[in-house]
Every structure is written in C-alpha cells, then in structure tokens.
C-alpha cells in the first residue's frame, strides 16, 4: 500500500525538516507537510500552504499557545494545557478521528516553544511578515529558501498591567517609537483626550485615544491588552484578511466590533461541524460560546475588541460541564 515516507530529507528547497515527538514537519517551495503515526503502523500526511502555516505558527509563538485550541486548519492544531501543550493531527476532525487517523501527543511547553521558534526562524523568508496582511507582505513566503526575517517574528502580545501610557506600564504608540499609522487607518483621528489634572493628580488621571492606538498597530490578528479590571482584560486587535487559525474556545470570549466589519464562521469545537455565521458590524457585541471554534474574515482592516476572562479556574469548570457553554441564559 502506498504511504507517506517514514523519513523526509534533512532539507528540502533549503528548508530544514523538523521532528516533534511522532510528528514530522517539512516544507518546500509552496507547502508544509506534516505527518503522524496512525493505526496499522502507517503514517498520515497533511498539507498546508506555507504562508498559512507560518501565520498560524506565529500566533502560537506570540500568544504562548493562547487560550484553548489553535486549529491551523480543520485537521492540524495545538491545544494549550497551560504548562504543557498538545499537538494533534485529525483529533478534532470527526472523519479522521472516527477512522483511526488521528494522533495526539503532549509536550512540555518550553521545549515545544523553543522548537517552533526554530521552525519559524528557518522557514520565514526575507520579506515575509507572518503578522502582516497579504497585501502588505506579498508572496515572499514562497519559493526556495531566501534569507530570513527574524525581526518580524520577534513580536508578542503587549503585556499591560493596568492601561497603556501609565507610568511603569506598556507604552503608547507613535511615530517616534516605530508605530506609524497603518495605511488602512489613515483616516482615523489622532486627537487625544483633554486631561486637566489638579496639582498632585497628574499621574492618577489618565486617558488615551484607543482608536488612534489601534490605527498604529503593526500586526493583524494579535490582541494586546489595553485595560485590566481584575481578571477582565480588554484585548483589542486589528484584523485584515483571514484569522490565520480556527480558534477553539476553552472559555466564553466576547467580541465588540469597534470599526468596520468581520464575518465569522462558527463550527462545533469537537467535530468541526458548521453551526453558524455571524456578521459583526461597528458597535455589535457577540459572545463566542465555550464549545465553538471560530474563524474571522475581515475584508478591510478593522478594529475588534476581544474581551477575555483570564481566571484560569473557569477552564476546568467548562471542561467538566459544570457550566453551560453560553454566558447568559434568557
């Protein structure tokens, strides 16, 4: 019977081949091929476009495997176990899983993070920015290996303790610290709040233009915290083209569409079966239940407020079915 090879060459088109546990990762001019062992001693192979794979892998690096499941596509992905991380092939695709073609393996997070950073460093070519929209970064992801872009892959979620711009907290964005206004937000007003503090209260009164701050984001689909109310985190982000992952929730999260619009495809988290499509326009608010996976499509760069509850205990409550997957009963 024909089957994928047990071993790939050490390099293909100049790109290194990597292994993580039983998984192999190789790339060529256009595609990434992943294989894993399945029933009968065979290996299952899977192909993802190289740019899509690198955009998804970049989010795993930047977000520290994020909340819940990061599906690279309907077959392959990672699940954050917070301290450990699960890699899976076919596990959340009912056809692969029900036919014995799925594989799940758990790894320590630090070791895994080191390896996927090495993959990114080797597979991202000069001129390709996995955080950028396709119209900004072009087709540099493809072809035989040419150079690298280490600066582009060294960006993470901005950690904020309370609110950007406060003393000792994350910085605001401006031309002077390398955050020009993005081309798609050239029309966004850059005025700032008028703050009139009485003497002695200059450091206690604080405001900033959130929309201007977002207009200067140099990344897409990469939430950063802009306000912290105990475990309630406002994590706005700017979105263009397609969310590079299908995010499987391990808790309820909420979206507030601040500008423009995003269409969301909603699937069942465990089976991948379609459940709904949600079109959000400016001012719309919607919950993403704890049992779904979602992927967004933003035809024009838009501003989205992602609202997260960072309390780690709630994951167990949803997993154990102590709670309904929906945030409100009415």
């Amino acid at each position: 019977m024909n089957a994928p090879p047990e071993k790939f060459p050490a390099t293909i088109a100049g790109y290194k081949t990597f292994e993580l546990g039983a998984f192999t990762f190789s790339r060529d001019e256009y595609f990434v091929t992943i294989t894993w062992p399945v029933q009968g001693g065979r290996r299952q192979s899977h192909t993802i476009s190289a740019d899509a794979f690198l955009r998804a892998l970049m989010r795993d690096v930047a977000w520290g495997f994020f909340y819940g499941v990061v599906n690279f596509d309907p077959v392959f992905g990672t699940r954050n176990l917070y301290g450990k991380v699960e890699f899976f092939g076919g596990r959340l695709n009912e056809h692969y899983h029900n036919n014995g073609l799925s594989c799940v393996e758990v790894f320590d997070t630090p070791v895994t993070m080191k390896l996927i950073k090495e993959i990114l460093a080797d597979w991202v070519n000069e001129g390709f920015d996995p955080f950028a929209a396709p119209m900004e970064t072009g087709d540099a992801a493809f072809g035989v290996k040419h150079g690298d872009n280490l600066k582009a892959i060294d960006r993470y979620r901005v950690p904020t303790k309370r609110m950007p711009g406060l003393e000792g907290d994350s910085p605001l964005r401006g031309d002077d610290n390398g955050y020009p206004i993005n081309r798609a937000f050239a029309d966004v007003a850059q005025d700032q709040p008028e703050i009139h503090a009485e003497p002695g209260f200059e450091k206690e009164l604080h405001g900033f233009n959130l929309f201007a701050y977002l207009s200067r984001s140099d990344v897409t689909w990469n939430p950063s915290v802009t306000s912290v109310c105990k475990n309630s985190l406002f994590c706005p982000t700017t979105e263009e083209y397609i969310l590079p992952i299908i995010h499987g929730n391990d808790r309820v999260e909420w979206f507030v569409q601040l500008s423009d619009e995003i269409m969301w495809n909603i699937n069942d988290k465990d089976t991948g079966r379609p459940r709904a499509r949600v079109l959000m326009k400016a001012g719309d608010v919607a919950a993403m239940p704890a049992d779904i996976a979602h992927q967004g499509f933003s035809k024009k760069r838009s501003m989205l407020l992602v609202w997260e509850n960072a309390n780690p205990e709630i994951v167990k409550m949803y997993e154990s079915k102590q709670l309904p997957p929906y945030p409100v009963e009415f």
Partner: protein
Amino acid sequence: MSEFVTRFDSLNDYEKGHIEIINDKPKHYCFSNVFEVASGAKPYEKIAVAKNFEYVIEAIRAEGKSSWMAAAHDEFCVVMDGDVTIEFVKLDHPESVAASDKEGTVPVSGEPQGKRMGTIRLKRGHQALLPKGAAYRFDSAKPSVMIQQTLQGDLTVQKWAEICYR
C-alpha cells in the same frame, strides 16, 4: 486622500450585523449593538451587553450630567460616539462609599467628600481610567454612547431578551 474609509457607527447612523444559523440558536451568541441599546436607554442606565461571570461590559447613553459614582476597583470607559467630560474627586474615605470587596459601580450619595482631581474630556475612540478610590460623574451636552468595563454591580441592568437576537 486615503483609499480606505474606516467605518465607526454612531447613535444616529448604525447598521446592525446578523447571524446566519446553520445548526444552533441565535440567542447563544447574545448578539446586540451598543448604539441600538443606547438608543432605547435612559441617560446613564448601565445596560450589560456582555457578561463573563462577575465581569460585564455595559453600554451607556451619556446625556446631560450623571450622578456621582465610584467603585472599589478600577473601571474603564471608551466613548463610541459623541463627547463626554468626566469629573473626578479623590475620596477621603473610599471604603465608606464602596467596601473593598464590593463589586461594580456604586452610587455616591450627595456630593463626594474629597479633593478635586480634575477632568478628562473624551471624544470618539477615547478611553479613560476610572480609578478605584475616586468618585466620578459624566457630562455630555448631546446624547453620546460609551462602553464601560466593570463588574456586575447594583447599578447594572440586564435585559438580554430585549437587546439580543433570539
């Protein structure tokens, strides 16, 4: 001129999105629109549009001057449409207004006792910190819309069936 036009909607010009159900129920998505909610709200009614355990996001119609409020924790507001000025007073005895474990916004009875901290004037897209230990009140000459990040409290209004797709 930019080839792109960024669309921020407003109280007087908004277009709500929609849900296309394949195999689910619309109400599971608690889908509302802050401008629509504010259009039917009383001034400074704090209507929950998002809820995650004890935390909420409230949609608020700012119109005229609000009463004084405070909280035992930081809160934040973002103006989605209009022009809102916030006045702050550093409370001399914040625990007498809101005990340290009290959740959500609380009303301040009468004039707050403490030093004037100053004011912040917010326009569309501007965000302000409503710091714990401070009383604050809003003032808006024309109807404006804000969202507030806080915890569910005595002033939070929940009317999901009225504001969400079912």
